[in-house]
């Protein structure tokens, strides 16, 4: 990425600090991903994206801006990307997934804040990630307390629009969210200078739905035994989908799904037939957080599905494409997004239903319910998750962790003990 140094300098990045991250990435990616055997050829694209991770897509975004387009950074799967693309903008998920950025966040945030929030704030304040410096506006939300207050601090640095996510799912909450989407449309129109019509919104809905369909295909392939793709690889696909161009993302995911379906026909798997099948459920894993998947899969078990924002919650449920008026489309968006079962909602028993359903669809042997350290919402919810799963004889273990290397061996022991329980 020698060519990109100029681009990074122009963005005002701290090149010295950034170099430190650049240094660990090849080893990290190599040790975690490239040691795998028999990866689908379709993963070549995603390997390429990682190799040029701070180059290719940022360059595309800058080009878009040069041509008068606007870029929006987002932090939650509740933000309707469709609105941004309908106005000719680019939306990209920005959540930080590396320990590298956490100390930057800790300069302004309390230490007992979720690492995802700390990393997201740190990436911007330390100027060590191009994705954080390019957007014309951040679209944030008040899903959890940590984020709600962190945005107040970050909002001093970059123009921000906050979407008020309801805390319940009654009819009046869906109506309230509809109103938020309308507001959001107004803001995006103002920033981009483009009017959103039912045509453009209709097109955008199809665009994002296509990406969802493609990811669903990739995931469906993981229901097979032997599983044709590793959980690490599937996670990487999902993570990259958060910020790549939606049309290309869908195409690449469909290519991969074609190959996986072929593998299923041939009986080609990347884990032996009798490998333990694990579901990971809980808080999202922003790129490059591959820690838990790596621990589980190095112990010989396959992660076959993720019930998280970097998993099924990202693409399950399509937006109803039959709406033809703007009102109808906004309603359809609100209804689809409000189906996402995040712990920031109460009650959230629907997430437990999802976990049980997915456990059956993906023929899961055990569930690891995980949350990032200090996430009160998911860690409290884990009590009910455990209760419900234990009643149904579904083995579950709970892991709370952060991005650091410190607890690697401890986690390994716990996961190993859990797998020993399952292997009997």
């Amino acid at each position, binding site marked *: 990425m020698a060519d990109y140094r100029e681009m990074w300098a122009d963005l005002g990045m701290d090149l010295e600090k950034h170099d430190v991250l650049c240094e660990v990435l090849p080893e990290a990616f190599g040790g975690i991903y490239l040691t795998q055997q028999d990866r689908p050829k379709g993963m070549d694209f995603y390997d390429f994206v990682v190799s040029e991770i701070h180059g290719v897509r940022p360059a595309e975004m800058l080009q878009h801006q040069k041509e008068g387009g606007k870029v929006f950074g987002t932090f939650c799967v509740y933000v309707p990307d469709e609105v941004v693309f309908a106005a000719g903008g680019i939306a990209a998920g920005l959540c930080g997934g590396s320990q590298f950025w956490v100390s930057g966040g800790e300069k302004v945030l309390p230490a007992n804040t979720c690492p995802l929030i700390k990393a997201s704030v740190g990436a911007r304040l330390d100027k060590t990630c191009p994705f954080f410096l390019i957007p014309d506006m951040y679209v944030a939300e008040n899903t959890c307390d940590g984020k709600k207050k962190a945005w107040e601090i970050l909002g001093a640095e970059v123009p921000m629009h906050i979407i008020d996510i309801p805390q319940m799912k009654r009819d009046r909450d869906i109506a309230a969210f509809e109103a938020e989407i309308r507001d959001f449309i107004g803001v995006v129109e103002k920033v981009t200078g483009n009017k959103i019509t039912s045509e453009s919104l209709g097109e955008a809905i199809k665009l994002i739905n296509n990406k969802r369909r493609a990811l669903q295909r990739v995931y469906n392939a993981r229901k097979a035994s032997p599983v044709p793709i590793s959980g690490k690889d599937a996670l990487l696909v999902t993570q990259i989908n958060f910020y790549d161009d939606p049309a290309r993302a869908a195409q690449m995911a469909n290519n991969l799904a074609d190959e996986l379906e072929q593998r299923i026909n041939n009986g080609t798997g990347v884990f032996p037939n009798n490998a333990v099948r694990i579901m990971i459920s809980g808080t999202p894993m922003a790129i490059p957080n591959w820690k838990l998947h790596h621990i589980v899969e190095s112990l010989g078990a396959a992660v076959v599905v993720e019930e998280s924002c970097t998993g099924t919650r990202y693409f399950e449920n399509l937006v109803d494409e039959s709406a033809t008026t703007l009102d109808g489309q906004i309603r359809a968006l609100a209804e689809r997004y409000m189906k996402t079962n995040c712990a920031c909602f109460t009650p959230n028993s629907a997430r437990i239903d999802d976990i049980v359903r997915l456990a059956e669809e993906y023929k899961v042997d055990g569930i690891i319910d995980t949350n990032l350290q200090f996430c009160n919402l998911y860690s409290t919810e884990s009590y009910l998750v455990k209760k419900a799963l234990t009643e149904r004889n579904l083995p579950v273990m709970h892991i709370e962790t952060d991005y650091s290397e410190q607890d690697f061996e*401890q986690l390994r*022991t716990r996961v190993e*003990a859990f797998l*020993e329980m399952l292997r*009997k």
Partner: protein
Amino acid sequence: MITIGIDIGSVAAKGYLLNREHHYRALIPTGWSPREAGQTIIEQLLAASGLDSDQVKRIYVTGYGRVAFDRADKTVTEIKCHARGIAELFPEVRTIIDIGGQDSKVIRIEERGRVVDFAMNDKCAAGTGRFLQVMANALGLDVSELGGAEDPEQMQTISSMCTVFAESEIIGSLARGNPKGGIIAGLHQSVGKRVAAMARRMGIKEQVAFTGGVAINPGVKRALEEEIGVEIMVPEACQYTGALGAALLALESG
């Protein structure tokens, strides 16, 4: 078939050799090289049993040092090993409390040591052997002397959660003339409270066993019983249950 189980802990390495009805045990400080400690354990077991290394059919290793030890046929977690070991010694046990050098665990088992749930504290020294080690040093005692030196009648409750601050607290308490026996009872209570809380969250099913290096300490046993409210069984071989479990698993692996 002759098998060996090795439990390489943070403080001590333990070994168990099973030769039909003949059992042999070995225990040494782990020191800085888990690999060498494991090796020495094997040598000691062979010397004690009078056997040659090629007569040993299988070696299983467990404990924090298992990753570094390369001469075993298989590594198994301490959770599974303690479960198997205790099930052998006390078949009626359904909850195991294990307090080791640098972690504490609660393991729920069913018959034959089948693990159904477990919880670990391995992030904080409080509630582990390390806590007692630090405190013993501060009191000028060997950690093995703590159990016999406590005086629960003169209990001096420790308020600090953190090992480092607790150390300052007891030094201050001693300086103010508070009875040493009471302070030690307070230390045991501190450990008991923390581990009991973990056990309660897991759900306690009788019978309950207490194992690991710290189980030698009758004061901690007393404190646990007080917190949990049930009688607790402590095996004579409490330091060896992990190694025993490993040796049994090696034997049963077909």
